[in-house]
């Protein structure tokens, strides 16, 4: 590792990083390298929201139960409230801001949530959408029970879940049609999305 790897350099010094000392964290977020200097105790959720000003990732319980803060880490869904930003230095994050196409066309999962009334207040929605993207990458053709289990780690206080489950089902079909990776930024040119 070169010395430009600031966080790593700081944190592997014999004394480590004393409390209160800030560390530089560099991560690729939605394809763009981003960095900020933060305390080691900065949660990834707060790093995204406060330091990078990406407020699409929501925070509910901050102990792993509600799923509102779910993001993709190297393509796999994780709770951003249960990771320190410094721990994921050098890795890739996808947030809800990274899904729609540049022209604003919604990602198939987002479109499905709209079509099937998978949201009301929308607070839980970014987490559900990111969980669904990770889930559909593993299970491109899920049955209803598999969808229920796959989405069981996220809580919604509004919808009663029926619309959410229907949305995931619709999205699975749409993604199978285009063959797009559910975790990738939407490319309207690549398939028959409206």
């Amino acid at each position, binding site marked *: 590792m070169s010395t430009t790897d600031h966080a790593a350099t700081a944190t592997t010094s014999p004394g480590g990083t004393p409390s209160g000392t800030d560390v530089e964290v560099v991560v690729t977020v939605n394809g763009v390298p981003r960095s900020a200097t933060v305390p080691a105790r900065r949660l990834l959720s707060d790093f995204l929201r406060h330091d990078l000003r990406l407020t699409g990732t929501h925070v509910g319980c*901050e102990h792993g139960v509600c799923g509102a803060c779910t993001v993709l880490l190297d393509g796999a869904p994780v709770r951003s409230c249960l990771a320190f930003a410094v721990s994921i230095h050098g890795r890739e994050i996808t947030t809800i801001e990274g899904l729609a196409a540049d022209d604003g066309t919604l990602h198939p999962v987002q479109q499905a949530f709209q079509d099937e009334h998978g949201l009301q207040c929308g607070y839980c929605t970014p987490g559900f959408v990111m969980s669904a993207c990770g889930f559909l990458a593993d299970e491109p053709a899920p049955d209803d029970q598999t969808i229920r289990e796959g989405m069981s780690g996220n809580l919604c206080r509004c919808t009663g879940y029926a619309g959410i489950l229907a949305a995931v089902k619709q999205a699975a079909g749409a993604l199978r049609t285009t063959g797009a990776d559910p975790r990738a930024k939407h490319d309207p040119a690549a398939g028959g999305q409206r």
Partner: protein
Amino acid sequence: MCRAVGSGTTAESASDTGDDGVKPPPFAYHAPRTEEEALATLGALGEDGKVLAGGQSLIPLLNMRLAAPPALVDLARLETLDRIAVTDTHVRVEARVTHERLRRDERVAAAVPLLRQALDWVAHPVIRNRGTSVGSIAHADPAAELPAVLALLGGWMQLRSVEGERTVEAGDYLLGPLESDTRPGELVVAATFPRPGVRTGTAFEELARRHGDYAMAGVGVRVTLDADHHVGDASAAFIGVGGTAIQVELTEVLRGQPYDALDKAEAIGLARASIDPTADIHATAGYRRHLAGVLLGRALETAVRHAAGQAPPDSGSAPEGPGPTESAAPGSAAPGSAATESAPTGHASGGYREETA
């Protein structure tokens, strides 16, 4: 992986964030690259150091300020301790292996089916993507599945420090609620799960209010049948109904029963008398005690069928074919003396036994 900060990177200022948005208490942060460095750091920190693995149990405690360790030693940047080894005798899982990676490994599912049977119940997939299997045993939550698996299979933990290495068996390692025999300065490097012997079936059953949450009660079961498919040996390990995984030996009450006509009443009674559930907002102690018995009944049925499915009843003396590795003990003497699991020629029903190692 190095990226020069500056030109290609948008650097943001943290100056306006101050302390807002910071929930965990402050700690000194260490991210060693090598095991040696990790052990040296943990050794120097002593009581002050806490290992951070997947963070799926520790970070909630920090966020709620239920814990405030002076220093964290993060395993995120270690370049080692991320292997799963499947051998003739066991599955060895190193400290950085996540639940989900272990759950998906076909070699593991074939060698020690109880691991996948239990991991299917561990948290939600999103949590399993970060949480480590070793970490969950080190954390010793009384409702966690893997401590029960380790106990039931007679497994052990391997701990290292600057002073050397210790191996601690499950029963001695799991001391109580959130209490394991990890001493200051020690790193658990691996958990080892022995392969069950021939004609041994396993199962895991539990009930949670939502699949993926910690169980109200749960049980892992291991049953070995004799050559004509009568119970030879049986044991259960309960979770969520005591301070730690509670193992209950069932051999005395089940021995000699035919696998397809089990009388489980005595076993269930014994189990209900052996556990020590408490009440919380999800369930009363009485409900948990009842539930534990019901789950035991289901798990026993699944486990005996799993065992019976591995080999037809033995009409005479010929044991199953040789183990997955041809050089393993030929097993022509006492069945069960070979430490290796037999892979039947052809496929047992249920597809458990595809040998991919």
